[in-house]
C-alpha cells in the first residue's frame, strides 16, 4: 500500500513553451509507481490536453493531482473567460482557439472530446468571465477501468 500522493503545478496562460511540463512530471511519477504504460498514456494524454486548454484559453491555472492505490484524480482550475456552452465545447470540431494556438498544433476542437474518451469520470464546471474547473478520474487498477 502506498501513501496517497498530492501534486500541484501552476500554469501561465499563453506560455506555450511550458505547456506540457506538468503532464510530463505526472508521467514521471506514474512510471515510478509502476502504473502500466497504457493507463499512463490515457492519463497523460488527457492531462496534456487539459493543460494546453488552460495555456490556450485562460490567464492562469492550477493543476492538482491526487494519486492513491486505485486511482488518479486531476483538477484543472483556471481563471479565464470560462466556457459559455459546455455541451458545444464537448462537440468534436468546435473551437474558439486563436490562430496562435492553431500554429502550435492545437485548436481543432478535439481536446475535450479526446479527454472524455480517455477518462473514467469527467466533470466540467465553468462560469463565464471567471474560469473553468475540469475534473477527471482514471482508475489505476484493472477493476476500476
Amino acid at each position, binding site marked *: 500500500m502506498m501513501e496517497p500522493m498530492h501534486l500541484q503545478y501552476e500554469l501561465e496562460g499563453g506560455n*506555450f513553451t511550458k505547456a506540457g511540463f506538468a503532464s510530463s512530471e505526472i508521467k514521471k511519477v506514474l512510471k515510478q509507481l509502476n502504473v502500466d504504460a497504457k493507463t499512463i*498514456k490515457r492519463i497523460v494524454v488527457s492531462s496534456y*490536453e487539459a493543460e494546453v486548454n488552460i495555456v490556450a484559453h485562460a490567464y492562469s491555472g492550477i493543476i492538482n493531482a491526487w494519486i492513491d492505490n486505485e486511482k488518479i484524480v486531476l483538477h484543472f482550475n483556471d481563471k479565464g473567460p470560462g466556457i459559455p456552452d459546455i455541451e458545444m465545447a464537448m462537440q468534436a470540431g468546435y473551437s474558439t482557439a486563436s490562430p496562435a494556438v492553431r500554429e*502550435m498544433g492545437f485548436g*481543432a476542437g*478535439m481536446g475535450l472530446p*479526446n479527454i472524455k474518451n480517455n477518462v473514467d469520470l469527467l466533470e466540467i464546471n465553468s462560469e463565464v468571465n471567471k474560469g473553468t474547473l475540469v475534473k477527471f478520474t482514471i482508475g489505476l487498477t484493472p477493476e476500476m477501468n
Partner: protein
Amino acid sequence: MKIQKINELLNAEVVCGEITNDSEIAFAFASDLMSEVLTIKKDGIVLLTGLCTIQAIRTAEMSDIHCIIFVRGKKVSEEMIELAKENNIILLKCQYSMFKTSGILYSEGVQPVY
C-alpha cells in the same frame, strides 16, 4: 522497418538520438495537428510532421512515440532537441514534402494507423 533504413530512404539527417540499434517501426502517422496525434492508441509509431515546435516533442512524449521525422527541412530548435534527448526521442529531418515522405515509407511497407 528499422529507423536506420527510414533515414536512408528519406535522405534524412539525424538531429538527435542513436539510430543504429533501434526497434522495428511498423506504423507511421502524418499530421500537423497534435490533438489528432494524441488520439492514436497504437504504440511504436513514427510521426511525420511539418509542425516544428516544442509541442510536437511534448505530444510524442505523452503518446510514447519514439521517433519524429520533420519534413520540408524545418529548423529544429535547441530547446526541442533538449526535450527530445530527455525523453529518448529520435529526431530526423528531411527535405521532402509530407506527401513524398509518406509515399516513400508507404511504398516500402510502413503501415498506416488507419
